[in-house]
């Protein structure tokens, strides 16, 4: 049987979910037996050489690149899994969602104690090569259809492993109560 191909991405996240994924420790060797690795920061493959079966998405969408990446994933992957609070509901980055973007930028680059001195020219980053910020941080499922959700900040390694093996083997995931948490 052909091994399923797995891809991962981190959007507006902190890579904590990827770290938690690596927390599956030696079980990664079992996983290697089960799957092929496609585009992922873990192996630094940057393009979709072929379509993937399962993609794990960490982080919500806070800039135009995230939107672009997420849409690209949707086009190339059969199953998309929102991994972690940020992918599911925007997470901590979304705490800016009820503050006007102008205020956010001023606080971040002009008025905060660490930048007031360091930014004497009062510059707000505006280089054309920088991703453009969205008006708010969007949960992934508002941009594309997401198939599964793994909550947690980060999701426990056991949850990621359990869910992934269930998806790969087609068996039902039996997860203990302690494994699904929002923090």
């Amino acid at each position, binding site marked *: 049987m052909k091994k399923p191909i797995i891809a991962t991405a981190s959007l507006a996240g902190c890579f904590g979910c990827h770290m938690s994924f690596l927390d599956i420790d030696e079980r990664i060797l079992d996983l290697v037996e089960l799957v092929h690795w496609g585009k992922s920061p873990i192996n630094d493959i940057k393009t979709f050489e072929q379509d993937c079966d399962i993609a794990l998405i960490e982080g919500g969408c806070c800039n135009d690149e995230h939107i672009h990446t997420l849409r690209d994933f949707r086009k190339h992957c059969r199953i998309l899994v929102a991994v972690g*609070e940020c992918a599911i509901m925007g997470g901590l980055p979304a*705490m800016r969602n009820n503050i006007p973007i102008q205020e956010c930028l001023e606080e971040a680059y002009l008025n905060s104690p660490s930048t007031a001195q360091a930014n004497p020219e009062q510059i707000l980053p505006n280089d054309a090569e920088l991703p453009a910020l969205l008006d708010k941080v969007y949960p992934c499922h508002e941009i594309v259809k997401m198939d599964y959700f793994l909550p947690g900040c980060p999701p426990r390694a056991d949850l990621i492993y359990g869910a992934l093996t269930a998806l790969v083997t087609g068996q039902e995931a039996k997860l203990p109560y*302690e494994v699904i948490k929002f*923090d």
Partner: protein
Amino acid sequence: MSETIETSSETITLTIDGQEIQAKTGQTILQAACENGIYIPTLCALHADKENGLKSDIAPGTCRICTVRVNGRTMAACTTPVAQDYIVENDTEELNDLRKTIVELLFVEGNHFCPSCEKSGSCDLQALAYRYQMLSPRFRYAFSSREVNAESPKLLFDRNRCILCRRCVLAITTEDGKQLFGFTKRGDKSGIIMDEELVKNISEEQAQQAMHICPVGAIIRKEKGFDTPFGQRKYDHNPIGSETVCTTCNGEKS
């Protein structure tokens, strides 16, 4: 609003989920269930005990999570009195799905950033989401703009996390019965307000009580957040309602 409930001593019989139980007339279905070790979820009604400092049970009837079927009709268990031969359905797929939907609505209505909340792990709303296996609400997040009030020397009041249950409105009063908290406006603009003058002088005991009865992390006693380490919090190991006997009654109530 029925705020306190008086009971009499006449005993009657009813069934909840097929289990026959005894109750006293004047009790609500919720109280009867609680005394008989049957879990009905609540976010607003609260049973008086030493820990929460309430003098009598409160039942604002606001959250509707305790909706049960009584002789076929849906009713709120916290405000519906028991009656002889009532047949109550509680732990059914249909009702648990209603409850899950209400939990989802509350999650998208407020701004519930669990990872940064002091109450996480001991929060009743979060615990109900765990119980009903909410992975992601089916509704869109509102990301509504809510104020945080940190003026009081003892209390932090974060409206982002408030679910408007009104426990604080009913329970936290001055000695002469004046409310420290109130309900403001209506509809989608509804909210809880504090009487800043009165809250400024809140006693240590009352501040702790306010934090304790708040089902979420909206009222926090300053300097008391994150007191309990991960792994030891209220709902870290067992789902809400998994106690077989109500921890607050503990069979003490006769």
